[in-house]
């Protein structure tokens, strides 16, 4: 098991190396550059050249790449051209927010999706089944930003049940340790700060959970239906086991494999794709920052972000593979 994890982590190195080459080439072939973003349409060619020189963009591409790699090994992602702060600092501040949001969204999606999909399969063809299948179709179809606006308008602005923006009430003056606000609150025993951060998470997390929820419901339903027809379920029934044992031990566990796969993929997607939701709720995560970085052609930030997302995907897939082997002895790793 341990060797498997190490091996998978070592696989990260060639992955990241290849990715960095691709990214580097791609970014340098793009028309325009940071100087265009900084100067806008005005700037004279001389001014552009001066900026390019100051950013080291006039050197040969291989030199630039070597320098980039050297910094990367030291975990130095460079300085953002738009905020003039270290990219690592920016990420450490913002990424935890997105992680919290993603985790919350996945907790909602899994916590509701698996039971709902399971019940839909059990009551196949009846009201709950039609409702959840239809509902999940709607969930997939509604654009996340639209749902985010609707949730915000109803529950934050009209009813006032939830805060409409931000990650935490700044007047609480909560202590920062990890920048995971909920975690910070728990670690420093500032319970109200933790609760407030959690409260801020609800609406954006619900909006973000809509698509994963819909997908998990459908996959769980399909998978349970398939397993219900398996011979070993009939064997379990033939043994006279209680319905509960049959469902829990024999059906549910066997139907979890495709669900786990999809959870892995969805989580990776959410981490990189929460841009719209974060923008609507002015949530200080990575999404909105990346959006800014793209429009500012902030190369260091984009490079760093894409590399981080790659790492996250590999880690999430590692976790998925490890949970496979917990669920299914046939794919157990040694």
């Amino acid at each position, binding site marked *: 098991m341990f060797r498997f994890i190490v091996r998978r982590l070592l696989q990260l190195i060639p992955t990241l190396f290849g990715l960095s080459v691709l990214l580097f080439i791609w970014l340098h072939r793009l028309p325009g550059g940071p100087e265009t973003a900084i100067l806008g349409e005005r700037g004279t060619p001389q001014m552009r050249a001066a900026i390019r020189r100051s950013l080291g963009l006039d050197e040969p591409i291989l030199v630039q790449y070597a320098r980039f790699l050297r910094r990367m090994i030291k975990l130095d992602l460079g300085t953002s051209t738009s905020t003039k702060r270290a990219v690592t600092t920016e990420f450490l501040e913002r990424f935890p927010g997105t992680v919290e949001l993603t985790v919350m969204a996945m907790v909602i999606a899994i916590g509701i999706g698996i039971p709902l999909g399971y019940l839909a399969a059990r009551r196949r063809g009846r009201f709950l089944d039609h409702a959840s299948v239809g509902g999940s179709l709607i969930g997939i179809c509604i654009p996340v930003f639209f749902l985010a606006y609707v949730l915000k308008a109803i529950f934050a602005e009209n009813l006032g049940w939830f805060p409409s923006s931000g990650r935490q009430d700044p007047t609480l003056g909560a202590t920062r340790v990890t920048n995971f606000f909920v975690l910070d609150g728990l670690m420093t025993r500032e319970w109200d700060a933790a609760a407030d951060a959690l409260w801020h998470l609800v609406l954006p997390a619900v909006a973000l959970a809509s698509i994963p929820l819909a997908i998990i419901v459908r996959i769980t339903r399909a998978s349970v239906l398939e397993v219900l027809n398996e*011979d*070993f379920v009939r064997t379990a029934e*033939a043994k*006279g*086991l209680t319905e509960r044992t049959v469902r829990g031990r024999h059906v549910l566990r066997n139907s979890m494999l495709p669900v786990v796969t999809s959870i892995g993929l969805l989580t990776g997607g959410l981490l990189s794709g929460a841009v719209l939701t974060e923008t609507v709720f002015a949530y200080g995560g990575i999404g909105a920052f990346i959006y800014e970085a793209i429009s500012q052609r902030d190369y260091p930030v984009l490079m760093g972000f894409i590399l981080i997302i790659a790492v996250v995907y590999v880690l999430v897939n590692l976790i998925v593979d490890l949970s496979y082997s917990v669920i299914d002895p*046939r794919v157990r790793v040694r």
Partner: protein
Amino acid sequence: MALLEVDDLSVTFARRGQRTVNAVDGVSFSVDAGEVVGLVGESGCGKSVTSLAIMGLLPKQPGLKVGGKAVFDGTDLLQLDDRSRRDIRGRDVAMIFQDPLSSLNPVIPIGLQVTEVLTRHRGMKGAAAEKEAVALLDRVGIPDPRRRLKEYPHQLSGGMRQRALIAMAVACQPRLLIADEPTTALDVTIQAQILELLKDLVRDSGTALVMITHDLGVVAGMCETINVLYAGKVVETARRRPLFREPRHPYTVGLLGSVPRLDAGRGERLNPIPGSVRDVLPWVEGCAFAPRCARRVDECVDGPPELVLAHDGRSYRCVNPAPVPGVTPDAAQALYREAPAAGEDAVPTPAEPGAVPAQAVPNDPPTVPGFGPAPREEESQ
């Protein structure tokens, strides 16, 4: 009073916009305590549906209708509520399935799959249950049972898996065991071993066994009474010897005649029953076998053939049965008359283990595993 009395059992599947399918259409048979009864027929004749209906294991779906009675020890299994049915299943009536790999849960160790029955019906837990499970695996001939308990189905061979399934089925010493094609998915040598094991278990414990199979060799080696099914009805019921010696229903005759024989002349063709099981007539219009029957007469399609009770307790559902002692068709007669004389030559082909029906009786000692029961001298006449 028989242990299990199946009376006019019918199973129909109705689908909207489609013709209603009568998978089982008035099946009646009985099983005495400790008796081995065969249900024989080709694919699609309703054998498995019959057994699943008795067990209450048919997948619940709209349009499914189960009629008739299946009285086990005074209780009609078909009338029981879900809970009492679960109490009986696995404890009094157990079942062994066809494909041991798919019939075992792939993600749970064998041990738990055995002990869960013990926990459910015998209240055994922890070490006691494990000890009993080891004893059970040992009893069904699984070597090193303690280690096997922790293994998963994919780590076992096909034969071992079927043994494990059998261990689960006999865990509570059921009074009735239903085996649905227990050897079909296994290779020939293993088939013989599994049949031998089943025979031993039945003999030692006095459990009644319903053997569902399409393999006449299996029937010949094990069953005392045989019910031949066709298109959801029992078309002939007889004790083993009379059935193999003097099959009355043309379908039985055809089944026996279609068994490949090693002592047949070189280049001699097999004798399949013409047509397929799908070429059936609905029973209400006449004999379902009529479209494929070599002995068809006009009366066959006048209406459903009545069950004829013959003097020796056997019964058949045919208006123009094969005569006794038969003249036609030759195949069935040849099987009976020539097989004993053929003696050692009558080794069945690997495709049909033990398929020399007229030679076998239950107490035969096994010869070489996979080559069927030994020929018996006294059978020669």
